């Protein structure tokens, strides 16, 4: 079934249709939450909350880019988690847990990539949430500037500025904690 039909049926409360959309986007939604929060259990919670909230709020989706709408909801769920951590700092930033990606070519490659993911995950946490979101969406998830502007509900100029400042800050942080960059 086409995505447009699934969206229409989901708006009418069809849970099976919505779950097909979940199947399509859950990996990307979860990875955004994981990189935003750098904590696997919290990322699972944020993903589940965001998807439930999306299903309940399907009536508010007025067409356009469904993926951007969904990612905006998960980004907001992550912001709520980060805010609650700021109030209770003892519970934040547990060890990053990464599960093997089924599409990884080899265990050696996976080990290297896992190490890289952990290091970058630590560095990303030090960025302000808006800059982190821009960097994750563009450099890790490969969205366009336009789509990121829809996720962030902001202008292209704001996206450019957040991405630029995020990368510059990330370069400083990684220079401190990692081997010199090539």
């Amino acid at each position, binding site marked *: 079934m086409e995505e447009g039909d699934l969206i229409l049926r989901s708006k009418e409360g069809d*849970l099976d249709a*919505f*779950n097909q959309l*979940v*199947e399509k986007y*859950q*990996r990307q*939604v*979860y*990875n955004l939450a*994981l*990189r935003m929060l750098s904590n*696997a259990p919290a990322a*699972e919670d944020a*993903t*589940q909350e965001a*998807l*439930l909230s999306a*299903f*309940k709020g399907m009536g508010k989706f007025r067409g356009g880019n469904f993926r951007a709408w969904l990612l905006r909801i998960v980004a907001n769920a992550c912001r709520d988690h980060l805010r609650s951590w700021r109030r209770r700092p003892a519970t934040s930033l547990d060890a990053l847990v*990464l*599960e*093997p*990606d*089924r*599409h*990884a070519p080899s265990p050696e490659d*996976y080990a290297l*990539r*896992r190490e*890289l*993911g952990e290091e*970058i995950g630590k560095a990303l946490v030090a960025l302000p949430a808006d800059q982190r979101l821009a*960097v994750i969406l*563009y*450099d*890790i998830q490969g969205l366009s*500037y336009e789509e990121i502007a829809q996720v962030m509900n902001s202008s292209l100029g704001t996206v*450019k500025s957040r*991405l*630029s400042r995020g*990368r*510059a800050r*990330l*370069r400083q942080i*990684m*220079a401190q904690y990692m081997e010199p*960059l*090539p």
Partner: protein
Amino acid sequence: MLSPYIDCQLTSSEQGLVEAHLERCDACQRELEALRGVVNLLHRVPIVSPRRSFALAEVVPKRRAAPVALLSAATGVAASLLAFFFVSDALNLFSSEVPVEEQLKEATPLAGPPPDMAGAGYEVVENWPFWQLEVSFSLLVVVLGAMTLIWWRRRKRGEKALKS
């Protein structure tokens, strides 16, 4: 300017300016290379498979919330009215005072003058059937309260079952 330059997001004139500057500025060249290094690393960050599916099992039916809200509101209104009747009854708000003399005259027109009853010459007569109202509204509050409790517990059980 370097970040959008890496992403080819500059206009051709802006791109020309950046390239002209880079040709004569070593610091900016180093900065550009370092930024490219960060971007290349970010591109290699693995996409992780979630440990479970996030498909929604079931959503709590919305229509169950309505009876509980309606019942608790009705219980509240009935309890408020009951309290109002009790207070009115205790303070004699809806009663009128009828002189005892008039009553006696009507009852025994030939009798002699009534004894001096200064300060006690009036009798309180209730215009509202308070006793009946209080009993029936007490029963109503008990019944509505019990129904609210039953619906609320049933909804809680449903939510717990969905979570498990």
